[in-house]
């Protein structure tokens, strides 16, 4: 069973069409990089996948659960890191995690145990009693990932998680997420416009002007398009220099 199936998805805001005929699937335990320039429609696609609003056309299934018909069952399988930081800056790191755990129905004891576990894994356990406001950008991102993992999701969605981070911070975050994918068998959808974040073994979906231009294994894109590198392939698919 696919972790995520997106079928013929379309959406528009008024007369402005932002997504059209978007289809792709992510298998269990796979890392899928959603590649697209700014304005390609990645964030809208994330909003539709996470049920923030309904698509005008098409469907989204998470482990077989239709998002529109059964959003609670679909959302229960998902961990989400949005493009905009969503930590409550008035709360401590621990309180932020426990709030998320409560929304997912975790009992208090388990919530405390999991928050320590996940923060420790991401190297920010020492910040548990600090206000979220006091964290650096990289630490906030790691806390958001720890929070997204609190309820044991099988699909992790990250919308441009490295935006605003320096190069070492981006590398560290990417390494953590790849470890999660490998060790826990979590399927990951990672939206980005940084080509260097694509691994040879990843699946990639290239989104441009609201349409999927290419989808498949990263190591297949260059030979299929007859170019030397992923960068060239991306440039040719998106018509950019």
């Amino acid at each position: 069973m696919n972790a995520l199936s997106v079928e013929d998805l379309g959406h528009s805001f008024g007369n402005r069409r932002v997504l059209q005929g978007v289809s792709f699937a992510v298998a269990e335990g796979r890392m899928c990089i959603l590649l697209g320039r700014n304005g390609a429609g990645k964030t809208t696609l994330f909003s539709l996948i996470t049920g923030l609003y309904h698509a005008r056309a098409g469907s989204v299934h998470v482990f077989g659960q239709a998002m529109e018909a059964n959003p609670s069952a679909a959302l229960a399988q998902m961990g989400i890191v949005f493009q905009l930081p969503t930590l409550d800056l008035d709360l401590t790191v621990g309180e932020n995690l426990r709030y998320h755990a409560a929304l997912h129905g975790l009992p208090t004891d388990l919530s405390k145990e999991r928050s320590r576990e996940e923060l420790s894994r991401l190297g920010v356990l020492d910040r548990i009693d600090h206000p979220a406001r006091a964290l650096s950008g990289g630490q906030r991102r790691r806390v958001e990932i720890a929070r997204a993992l609190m309820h044991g999701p099988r699909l992790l969605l990250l919308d441009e998680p490295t935006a605003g981070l320096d190069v070492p911070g981006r590398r560290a975050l990417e390494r953590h997420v790849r470890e999660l994918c490998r060790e826990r068998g979590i399927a990951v959808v990672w939206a980005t416009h940084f080509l260097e974040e694509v691994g040879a073994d990843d699946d990639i979906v290239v989104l441009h002007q609201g349409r999927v231009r290419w989808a498949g294994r990263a190591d297949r894109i260059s030979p299929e398009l007859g170019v030397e590198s992923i960068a060239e392939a991306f440039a040719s698919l998106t018509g950019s220099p």
Partner: protein
Amino acid sequence: MKTHHALRALHGILQREMLRTLRQRARLFSAMVRPLVWLTIFAAGFRSVLGLSITPPYQTYVLYEVYVVPGLAAMMLLFHAMASSLAMVYDREMGSMRLLLTAPLPRWYLLAARLLASVIVGLPLVYLFLFVARFWDVRPPILGYVAVFPALVLSGLMLGAFGLLVSSISTQMENFAGVMNFVIFPMFFASTALYPIWRLAEAGPVLATIAAWNPFSSAVELIRFALYLRFDVVSMLVVVACLVVFFLAAMVGYDPGRGLWSRRGGEG
């Protein structure tokens, strides 16, 4: 929806509201001081110029301070509801609203839980004000403090649902200045919070009609009657009906298929 999950989520939302409120000390302080300033300055001035005839639920002539305290309690609920609504717009702009709306529970339940939590957090301040008002010789019967509880909850929910509706159609925090000027202030001043209907009728029949139809007046009267151990059925029915209408309208605003985000999108 499983009951234990729903209760844990409600507990989490309530805890977050409490922590945020306790940490915003300036907001807490101003919420308490505002009605006391009205009671001290406004009521003292009006006491000398405004005569009050016997107006139910009072069975005798009362001081203006006695008349105005239920209105000021309702004003606290109104301003608390609007502050909560503003916080929801802020959360939406800052992104943290997404966390709530992507929780695996029905959206109506999540918003209702947030509404209830906001009212619960606001109530202690209203009670504190009612007790402090005793120093101004506003001394309703002790049992009135118990009887007023459901009236405060219902009124708080109705005003909170109105705030929820405002937040569902408000795209930016800047719009709130307009909401204050064109919604909140008229709602408060064109009501029975500060003057009885017959006084407003003397000023103009149109104003009296607006005040009579204003749901905020019903909230004020529900609180006033309950505080003096009387039950105002009509006010209660109006408050409950408005609560249902405002909440349902807010649900349309937050609906993933028809709401604001669906039409205009989030951040792109």
